[in-house]
């Protein structure tokens, strides 16, 4: 295709315009309950223009909700990395370990966050007020862990034998082999895992908040559905998408930094 000036800007804008048209037409014709773009904007204005306002527990600016969600995601995500990275290392290093745990991982991996959450709530039933938070953390961690686990394992297995031979000739201790050779050699793979995990963690947050009713983007979305304010469902979806996109870009930047090493 021939390139023209500003195609990087105009072509995506064209895409957005198409979607807007489809949205308007749908709400005017077959989907009567779907608010039109203009109605959505009118109903969302306060939430977008005063993004950090707090009018009540479930009536806050959209970025304030986002901030709550991000905090919870961050906790669950770091928990996932903390647990997932060592598991990945063991999987990559030991064939026996792989044989023992690989089937379990393959079975647990496709389980939906919606299935994990009730289990998480049950697990922390005795925690009282904190049960919801802990259950959500558990769900985020266990769902977002797998890409980190699997990519780390692949990375460890892909460490060139030559590098390991250098370690053997120098008789490096296990610790030094890990920190000076294995870890740096695996880092690019690990970061790919970290990026994918963050994407999943952000996916899970919405489900977790919907079911626990916590303040956050997902909780807001569910509450407004129940309150019949459908415009805010769309506002929430757009926010979730934008934040997810931003997180992915950020991780890509980090990843690129470590790739050169």
């Amino acid at each position, binding site marked *: 295709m021939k390139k023209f000036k500003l195609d990087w800007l105009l072509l995506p804008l064209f895409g957005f315009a198409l979607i807007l048209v489809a949205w308007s037409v749908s709400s005017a014709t077959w989907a009567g309950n779907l608010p039109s773009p203009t109605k959505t904007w009118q109903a969302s204005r306060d939430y977008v223009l005063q993004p950090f306002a707090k009018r009540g527990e479930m009536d806050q600016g959209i970025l304030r909700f986002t901030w709550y969600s991000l905090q919870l995601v961050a906790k669950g995500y770091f928990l996932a990395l903390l647990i997932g990275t060592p598991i990945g290392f063991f999987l990559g290093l030991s064939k026996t370990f792989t044989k023992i745990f690989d089937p379990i991982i393959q079975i647990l991996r496709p389980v939906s966050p919606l299935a994990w959450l009730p289990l998480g709530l049950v697990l922390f039933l005795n925690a009282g007020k904190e049960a919801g938070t802990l259950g959500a953390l558990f769900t985020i961690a266990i769902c977002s862990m797998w890409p980190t686990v699997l990519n780390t394992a692949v990375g460890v297995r892909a460490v060139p034998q030559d590098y390991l031979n*250098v370690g053997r*000739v120098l008789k490096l201790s296990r610790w030094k082999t890990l920190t000076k050779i294995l870890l740096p050699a695996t880092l690019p793979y690990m970061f790919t895992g970290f990026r994918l995990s963050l994407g999943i963690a952000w996916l899970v947050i919405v489900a977790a908040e919907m079911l626990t009713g916590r303040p956050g983007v997902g909780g807001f979305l569910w509450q407004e559905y129940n309150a019949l304010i459908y415009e805010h469902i769309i506002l929430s979806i757009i926010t979730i998408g934008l934040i997810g996109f931003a997180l992915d870009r950020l991780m890509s930047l980090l990843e690129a930094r470590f790739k050169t090493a």
Partner: protein
Amino acid sequence: MKPFLEISQLGKTYPTPNGAPAVIVEHFDLKIRKGEFITLIGHSGCGKSTVLSMLAGLTDITTGGIILSGKEVNSAGPDRGVVFQAPCLLPWMTAFENVMLGVDQVYYTADTEERRQIAEYYLTVVGLADAMHQRPAELSQGMRQRCGIARAFALSPKMLLLDEPFGMLDSLTRYELQEVLLDLWQKDQKTALMVTHDVDEALFLSDRVVMMTNGPAATVGEILEVKFPRPRSRQQLLEDPLYYELREQLIGFLEERSHVRPTRIAPPAPPPPAAPPRRPRFLGALTPA
């Protein structure tokens, strides 16, 4: 006098899926004196690198054994400095850090400043004084191999093992690095074993050239003494008629005789393992083993 390095009846076989094990090297015998420079030459795939890898302790020995200054070689260790074909520098460390990684291991009693000096000394000798704080990606292939050589020498090893270290370099760089290597070898008075398939390289560097027969089941074919005075200069060698004679012999071996297996007096074959005696099931415990 006891040899510094003694390789006796060294053999390597790999099991294959269809049963008959693949014999790479067998009955490999070689004695090396302290301070000697030996090159191992042969067609590619003949198993020279396998021999070197067993010496380095990176490949398990199937049969026979290796004794280096009174100690059996059975694992890798920094008493043997290895220069790999691809220099195998760790890409996330600078040239200096790559050398320091080994120096820290060997001179763990020295203080940081002394260790730094050792690493810097060897990097300077190989000509990397100005580039020692660059990463391998920023260095040319030749500079990387210089660093590989510095790393091996900086370990102050009993022996140097070089696996076609100049195979990937253009010929000008190769000449330069051969001289760097020879200089350091003479200064540090090391014993060295180098694998190569370059006839001129072998003649320029070594005291003896060990020619290996073709695989499978490769072994020592002939050994050529190279008695040019040291220090050597390439120019002198090229003017010496003996050089061409030796060269002829080497090439003659590689082209005509490398497939001929040397006639060796076979050691008495070990008796075939006796079939386990069949014991009657219930009385088995009573029969003396």
